[in-house]
């Protein structure tokens, strides 16, 4: 029985690694999930949605494209994402998004960086043979790891708890030995 369970576990791990190898960022189950900040906005021949996980630091930006008005989808030649603080303290930084395989429409992804928790202007620029355009939006970058320094305390607790259980068990054992 334990060997069968072990075999199943090895198989499950192998399947997981096959997926994780092919789609490393997609398998990031414990990374913050992206939220949609722009929904179904028309840009040229496309209907675009933008998803991001706007934490301070490096964050993923996804641009989901579908063909507008029942047209045939033609992949854009370039998708770029520009971010700049609303405060104007920095100049805009443009990031080239790369295409990712999807069954329908197009999905483009890039990593952008928010160096501070504040409001940012976002520009998505799309170019293709059948037209293009840009959309704008605003996104608020939030401090990462909402647990904050509490994560340090939480991660320390198991060691204290196990030490406490071990100590209590040792006392109980000594008590039993004394009784015998």
């Amino acid at each position, binding site marked *: 029985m334990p060997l069968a369970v072990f075999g199943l576990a090895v198989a499950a791990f192998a399947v997981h690694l096959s997926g994780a190898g092919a789609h490393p960022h997609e398998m990031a189950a414990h990374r913050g999930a992206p939220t949609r900040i722009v929904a179904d906005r028309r840009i040229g021949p496309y209907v675009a949605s933008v998803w991001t996980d706007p934490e301070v630091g490096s964050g993923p930006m996804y641009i989901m494209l579908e063909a507008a008005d029942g047209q045939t989808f033609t992949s854009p030649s370039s998708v770029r994402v520009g971010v700049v603080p609303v405060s104007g303290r920095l100049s805009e930084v443009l990031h080239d998004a790369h295409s990712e395989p999807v069954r329908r429409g197009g999905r483009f992804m890039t990593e952008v960086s928010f160096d501070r928790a504040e409001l940012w202007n976002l520009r998505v620029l799309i170019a293709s043979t059948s037209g293009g355009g840009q959309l704008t939006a605003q996104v608020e970058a939030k401090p990462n790891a909402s647990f904050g320094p509490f994560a340090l305390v939480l991660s320390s607790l198991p060691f204290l708890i196990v030490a406490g259980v071990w100590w209590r068990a040792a006392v109980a*054992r000594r008590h039993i030995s004394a009784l015998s």
Partner: protein
Amino acid sequence: MTTAQSPVAISSHVDPAGQSFAERLNGPWHERSLQVFMGIVLAHWAEHLAQAYQVYVLHWPLANARGVLGLWFPWLVRSEALHYGYALVMLVGLWILRSGFVGSSHTWWMVAFWIQFWHHIEHALLQGQVIVGQNLFGSPVPMSLAQLVIPRLELHLIYNTIVFIPMVIAMYRHLVPPEAERAQMRCTCAGQPRLAAA
């Protein structure tokens, strides 16, 4: 049915002769197995502690704070192989060591198992989305159900915490059992078979 066992009876349970591997794991080897299992659990917590230290004390960027193993093997963290491998080890360990627990400790141990089982279902859901090539909720990345409620990095920490709590209660009840449960135990964890052998 609960019956108190004599020292001789307990001693005969501990004799590994004629026992299957599973019976040995949950009998004479249970104490050592649990120590190893708890060592793995604490090593994993140590990774999280190291990561929290890197972020909040050393002020490393989150992307660079990969714990200890992640510094030498970044792909382990990037691909989540470490997380998934640990989730699997937990599931297997909780299952194969369960029958050594009796009474209330068994109940708590199984609570930990079922929570971990659900954690694994979430991973299977993510895996399924990658295999099928279609994500839930129109998301650009595979989504687990808990991520709808807790869409944060801390979800993993929360899962480990809510599995760890019933597990450690089970350990406590197992190591310091009520008398009625002590009589049913087949392992050396609470100390009585050593008394029998003495």
